[in-house]
């Protein structure tokens, strides 16, 4: 997903409560680290298995030769199939963990980290294509580096919880239960132990926010995008989408020009000629002149109808007046299919995004009515985490393939100009769910609704 986001910033405050919260969050980060380690372990286990197999095969001794070979191939085979399964799973898993970490450091440590991943190639990916996409993305290497480095960095995040636990359990604990032996050092009276325990616990609580922030900073130093390879990729992607956007724009303008030339313009010329003819015969043959005038009037009605259709294709009036939700509501009112709309927009996206989303929905609804044989379609519009998300779901027979039709590809290309993406789930038998995501901010909440 090619997305640059900068999560909102919430700075931790000081105080006992903030300290406890920070310590708890540190533990959560440690849990993420452990999950990452678990993923890496999969790969390590696979490599070890292969090494073991090789070892048995080449340097091993003892036992009949056939058994050794069988055992070796069993180990190598298991290792290889584990790698085949574990490689993409690990890469995607570490990516998911890294993205979660980026989000959480922004929300919890006050250290927002931008992210950038190379967009997946269009269409359905084979195993190798998928692996190549993941492996060539510099972000993947960065995420792996982070998963390894996190083992050490995590000490920062987990330290406060460890210190607090030591203070409470080792020093204050013996006061309450005999199960915990008091630490052995000279002068360890129960009273000094409690005082020391409280002191240690407070140190942990007070230091927690600062340590959590330090952890966030370390995470940023590794997880933030940067470096030439990435910039190059981004530039390449921007160049491609810009060229496509310009091409689409130019083609649109040519189409509009042709429509005006063949439609409204031609009708106006004909009207002028008809009116001129009427003027020539108005004295000699008033009845024929009247007929010509009426003909000119009808031509003007047709010219207006054509202009209206053209305007709808460029920028639908309801979209301009009321925004995305009402424009789609108007679309649903005109459609003979059952379309229900759920919208949760508290403001309006920028006009180009709004327009792109609207026409994408138009095309998707047209697809549904052409191919899906659906009884019901649901359109869902919401804006969360700096993303406009539009979902179009139908209960038709499914089996929509982006590779088969150019329609879905076209939408994908147009959304790419806004760093937007499109995801399709359409198993044979249905239902079909298309989701679009476009990063954008909303302008101020709408001031009127009636």
């Amino acid at each position: 997903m090619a997305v640059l986001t900068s999560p909102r910033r919430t700075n931790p405050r000081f105080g006992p409560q903030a300290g406890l919260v920070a310590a708890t969050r540190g533990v959560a980060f440690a849990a993420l680290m452990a999950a990452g380690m678990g993923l890496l372990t999969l790969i390590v286990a696979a490599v070890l298995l292969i090494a073991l197999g090789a070892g048995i095969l080449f340097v091993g001794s003892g036992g009949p030769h056939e058994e050794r070979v069988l055992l070796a191939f069993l180990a190598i085979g298991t290792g290889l199939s584990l790698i085949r399964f574990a490689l993409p799973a690990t890469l995607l898993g570490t990516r998911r963990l890294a993205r979660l970490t980026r989000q959480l450091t922004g929300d919890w440590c006050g250290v927002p980290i931008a992210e950038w991943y190379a967009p997946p190639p269009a269409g359905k990916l084979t195993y190798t294509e998928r692996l190549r996409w993941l492996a060539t993305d510099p972000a993947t290497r960065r995420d792996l580096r982070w998963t390894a480095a996190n083992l050490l960095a995590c000490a920062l995040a987990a330290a406060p919880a460890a210190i607090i636990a030591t203070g409470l359990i080792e020093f204050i604990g013996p006061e309450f239960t005999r199960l915990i032996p008091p630490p052995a050092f000279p002068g360890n009276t129960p009273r000094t132990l409690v005082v020391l325990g409280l002191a240690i616990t407070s140190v942990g609580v007070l230091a927690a926010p600062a340590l959590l922030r330090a952890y966030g900073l370390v995470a940023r130093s590794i997880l933030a995008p940067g470096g030439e390879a990435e910039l190059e990729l981004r530039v390449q992607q921007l160049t491609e989408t810009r060229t496509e956007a310009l091409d689409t724009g130019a083609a649109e303008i040519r189409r509009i020009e042709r429509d005006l030339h063949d439609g409204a313009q031609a009708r106006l010329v004909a009207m002028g000629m008809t009116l001129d003819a009427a003027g020539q015969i108005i004295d000699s043959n008033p009845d024929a002149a009247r007929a010509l005038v009426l003909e000119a009037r009808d031509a003007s009605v047709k010219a207006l109808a054509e202009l209206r259709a053209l305007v709808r294709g460029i920028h639908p009036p309801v979209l301009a007046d009321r925004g995305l939700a009402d424009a789609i509501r108007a679309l649903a009112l005109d459609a003979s299919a059952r379309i229900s709309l759920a919208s949760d927009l508290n403001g309006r996206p920028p006009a180009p995004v709004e327009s792109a989303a609207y026409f994408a929905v138009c095309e998707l609804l047209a697809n549904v009515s052409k191919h899906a044989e659906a009884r019901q379609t649901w359109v869902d519009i919401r804006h969360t985490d700096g993303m406009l998300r539009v979902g179009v779901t139908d209960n038709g027979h499914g089996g929509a393939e982006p590779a088969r039709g150019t329609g879905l590809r076209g939408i994908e290309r147009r959304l790419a100009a806004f760093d937007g993406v499109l995801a399709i789930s359409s198993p044979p038998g249905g239902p079909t769910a298309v989701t679009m995501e476009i990063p954008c901010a909303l302008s101020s909440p709408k001031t009127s609704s009636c």
Partner: protein
Amino acid sequence: MRVVIAEDLFLLRDGLTRMLQAHGLQIAAAVDNGADLLAAVTADQPDVAIVDVRLPPTFTDEGIRAALAARREVPGLPVLVLSQYVEQLYARELLASGSGGIGYLLKDRVFDSGQFVDAVRRVAAGGTAMDPEVIARLLARNTGDGTLAALSPREREVLALMAEGRSNAAIAQRLVITERAVAKHTASIFLKLDLQPSDDDNRRVLAVLAYLGG
């Protein structure tokens, strides 16, 4: 009959004024924005207001909002909204703003001044004037899902004209049939669509529109 016009383009405002005057209507005020419209309808108490959808300052749906506001200010004020395009969404909002005295027409309809003035008078009298394009799309939508399958082609024609807000007499004249034939068709339509028949023209229109609008 006294009319207030709100239209921001001078040429159209002037043209409308002259056309309505030529048909014997009196222009109480001709303004070019929503605020002046509100002032005019309260000050002049016209029989009907004719409002363009696009008005300054935003040139979006100001006219619709001004019309709705005017009807809140002067309850029951008949309003005829004119637009370069028609939307069912706006038609619904206007129809929901009170029972009757509502018109929503394409601007092109002024080309046929006789029909247009007829619509103005109908709205002023508390009736309804919906643009044929709105009705055509409503019918297309209802035909698509089979709701109107029981109606004969002639009954559909009558239904469309009825939904526009026309009286039996006007429908008869339009279809070149007798008024009694129209009455027979409407009775049959109401029976087939399971609607409560009504002698009141406007109630009948609203029932049909509500039925088609779902």
